């Protein structure tokens, strides 16, 4: 009998279907891997399993969840815990200032009576029994073969150990039936990841069902018994790991139709290098870049792809000096000053940020001001002198904004509408218009189509191609592989903060999948 069974699960957010008839089952003592790209529906599935409020407040879900064959309706994380479902979070739910023991027993502390609690009968007045809590924590740590002192404070621990503290907390809860690991190895070194997977096997041997969410294919093969693959919210396959291999999994994970947009010109393989990056490190939280070497050819569209959190977003942000950066960048033969956004802009590089609403736009300013502001700052355009004062040249700004609104087809009430009121797609066009106003030779675009509708998507991509044909070099970072493949000349795949490889749009699905999972060089022997 399956300890966990999720049957025909469907879910839509405001008419947007994110899960379609997904099936998933976990047997006791089994390690079941759940595989999928970002946006494949893994998180939504887990939110349903844990009864997160985001599911309840958006109209629940369709389908059936059973624990030990018993159909259950989980409506809160607390209830999920009571049902014996535990989760080891990707971002640690640990209190750094507390000891390991305090974290393991957080809000489940063992207490003993004292005078006040005996009189008031208030459990909150009972004294914490430090020794017994520590003993429990010790027992949980011993089960995992971890020899750390349970009185050690979490803040001083290496990341690998924090993970084990999280696991210790889950197995300390009585009646644990299913333990979900949400991309636990993403932040670990290889040896730490091996330790973790061994611990998972040990737990599975004790009869706990383990759901292992990951995108590292070799880890699936190494430790999982079965694997379920999701793609675009749909169930693709469930396989015994003995019957499959890394290449097949990669193909199943990525495979979809790719439409390559027609481009008039091809960039020669030996075109001039406009920018070369070497040993670039960017400390962008969650998107750390750990030593990237890259050469960008003049006139090409270079796509940067990879899974979320691997560092692809960090590259453009590092070039722009938005996060602490080390390494060296040569642009048009000159060394680019790092960590200095102004000088990067001055040298003719423009950036469309992935964080449209956060740093991309001045939300409470008009469209025309948004379009003109960087040029006013960097190039001194749209300004006029009035005695000792420098004033903005309203007429010039208005004229330019109107021209841009027409050119990019920005649907708005007029150039003085607040950018906050625009739809996501139109906001993106404003961002693009501002970048283009700078007349850059190199344009960095991050996630240009995130959160915008299909029509606007097409327009944005068409605009990028048009700008490219006019001679602009473009580096486009995107989570959507299909879109990278549709317009790029070359596609760099970033994994674990480094360049895993460079592919052409026509290369096979399996190659892309393997590279994104970081197993390409192992499987193909670094052929390229």
């Amino acid at each position, binding site marked *: 009998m399956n300890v966990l069974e999720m049957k025909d699960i469907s879910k839509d957010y405001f008419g947007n279907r994110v899960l379609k008839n997904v099936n998933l089952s976990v047997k006791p003592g089994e390690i079941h891997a759940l595989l999928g790209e970002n946006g494949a529906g893994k998180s939504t599935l887990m939110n349903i399993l844990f009864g997160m409020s985001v599911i309840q407040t958006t109209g629940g879900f369709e389908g059936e969840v059973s624990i030990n064959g018993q159909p259950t309706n989980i409506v809160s994380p*607390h209830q999920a815990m009571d049902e014996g479902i535990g989760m080891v979070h990707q971002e640690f739910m640990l209190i750094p200032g507390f*000891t390991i023991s305090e974290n393991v027993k957080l809000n489940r502390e063992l207490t003993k009576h004292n005078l006040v609690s005996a009189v008031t009968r208030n*459990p909150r007045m009972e*004294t914490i029994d430090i020794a017994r809590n520590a003993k429990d924590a010790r027992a949980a740590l011993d089960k995992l073969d971890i020899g750390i002192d349970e*009185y050690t404070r979490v803040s001083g621990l290496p*990341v*690998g150990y924090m993970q084990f503290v999280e696991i210790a907390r889950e197995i300390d809860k009585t009646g644990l039936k299913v333990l979900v690991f949400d991309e636990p190895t993403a932040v670990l070194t290889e040896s730490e990841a091996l330790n973790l997977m061994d611990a998972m096997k040990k737990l599975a041997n004790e009869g706990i069902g383990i759901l292992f969410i990951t995108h590292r294919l070799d880890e699936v093969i190494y430790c999982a018994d079965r694997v379920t693959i999701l793609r675009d919210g749909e169930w693709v396959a469930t396989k015994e790991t003995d019957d499959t291999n890394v290449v097949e999994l990669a193909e199943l994970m990525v495979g979809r139709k790719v439409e390559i947009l027609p481009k008039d010109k091809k960039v020669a393989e030996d075109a001039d290098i406009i920018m070369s990056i070497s040993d670039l490190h960017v*400390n962008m939280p969650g998107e*750390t870049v750990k030593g990237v070497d890259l050469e960008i050819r003049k006139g090409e569209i270079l796509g940067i792809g990879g899974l979320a959190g691997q560092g692809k977003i960090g590259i453009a942000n590092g070039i722009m000096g938005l996060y602490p950066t080390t390494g060296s960048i040569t642009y048009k033969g000159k060394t680019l000053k790092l960590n200095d956004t102004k000088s990067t802009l001055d040298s003719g590089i423009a950036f469309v940020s992935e964080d449209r609403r956060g740093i991309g736009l001045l939300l409470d300013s008009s469209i025309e001001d948004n379009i003109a502001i960087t040029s006013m700052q960097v190039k001194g355009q749209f300004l006029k002198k009035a005695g000792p004062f420098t004033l903005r040249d309203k007429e010039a700004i208005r004229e330019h904004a109107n021209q841009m609104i027409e050119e990019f087809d920005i649907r708005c009430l007029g150039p003085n509408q607040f950018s906050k009121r625009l739809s996501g797609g139109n906001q993106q066009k404003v961002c693009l218009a501002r970048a283009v106003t700078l007349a850059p030779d190199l344009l960095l675009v991050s996630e240009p189509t995130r959160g915008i509708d299909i029509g606007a998507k097409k327009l944005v991509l068409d605009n990028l191609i048009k700008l490219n044909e006019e001679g602009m070099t473009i580096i486009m970072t995107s989570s959507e592989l299909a879109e990278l493949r549709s317009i790029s000349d070359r596609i760099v795949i970033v994994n674990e903060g480094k360049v895993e490889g460079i592919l052409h749009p026509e290369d096979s699905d399996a190659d892309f999948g393997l590279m994104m999972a970081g197993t390409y060089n192992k499987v193909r022997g670094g052929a390229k």
Partner: protein
Amino acid sequence: MRNFSLKRFFIDNIVTIIFLTLTIAGILIAQQPIHILVNDIVRRFARNTFLVLALIIPVLAGMGLNFGIVVGAMAAQAAVIFVADMGWNGLFGLSMAILISIPISIILGWMIGKLLNKTRGLEMITSLLLSLFAQGVWLLIYLALMGRFIPIRTKELLIPGGIGIRNTVNLGDGMGTGIKYSLANLSQMPFFLAMTVFLGILSLIYLVRYLRSKQIKGQRDKWLLIPLAVSLLGTLIMFLGHSTMLYPASILRLNEVDIPMVTYGLIILVGLFVNWLINTKLGQDFRSVGQSQSIAAVSGINVDRTRIIAMITSTVMAAMGHIFLLENLGVLNTYGSHVSIGLYSVAALLVGGATVNRATVGQAFLGVLLFHTLFYIAPFAGKVLLNDAQNGEYFRNIVAYGAIGLSLVLYAWKQANHAHNKAMRPEGDDAAPATIDLSADTE
């Protein structure tokens, strides 16, 4: 055990070290007879320690330094004025004042807690502004409504026109009328004897803690032997002062200083109470919420309720503390007594080495001692140095605000430094060394 580094110790305790230096310098410059100095410190310590202890729980619960204790003090003053109006004297009057202040301060604390839950992240500035707003309400009630809409029986309490409470309210003569000294007069001991008793009790506490440390961690915590030895030595020194004539005459005059034993006994009890509370499940919840509201919430702790309970505890303790302060002072400054206690209590706690998110009972005691010694000595030192006591008066204000400013700036600086070091490590967090001395950060 934590590796001891002098530089780190210095940076971590910079505020306390600066104030220790200033205090010692002040004492040396002022040249006050030691028994007069000690006499004053004994009284100031008795007055202010309760209020500083009231600040600890909100700090642990992540609500910062609670300037809202001013509101608790208002509850205390309302009760004291009522008791004075009723003409209740002595211990009965004091007990009634405490009894009346408790429900008022519970309600006010609940309201402050509610407000602070709505202004998350801005607790300190909110409580500060709230105390200023409360002062406005206080003025309205006691200056404009008392005697007009709220009847007052004792006409001497009123301003001659018949409306509003007088600027100063006399709380008795210390001999039985009013509540003045009703607690202090219960039992007094000369300095050396009293100190022998207190240090003896302290030694006992450390001894018990040392013996019990084996039960908790499996081995005896040898670091506890240091305070144990120090307190035992102190007991011996004080006992010799009490029973022999070994010390010079100027020091022996310390015996002229009377220690109010009940008041000090209560201070110790409240200190123990706070420590006990921290070790209950509720105390653990305070700390969990203080460390991370989101993680506490995910673990099933009712964050909002816990924060409100912290606020109520603090406000009630502040009200009681303020009553003890007035009992010892003997005079109520109707429109001023409560205003300054927020500032001085916060400053004292910070001087003791506490920060916005960390405070202990020991820090409260040390802080009160240092801050009020400096407070007392400053005018005398000013007189010696500049031939004008008034300068020392100014210096008091610089000390109070300076303590708060300095420790907040240093706290922010440390945080920024920490964040900077973290950000500039090229590989980010995941580059934590694979092998690490795991005993390095053991508590």
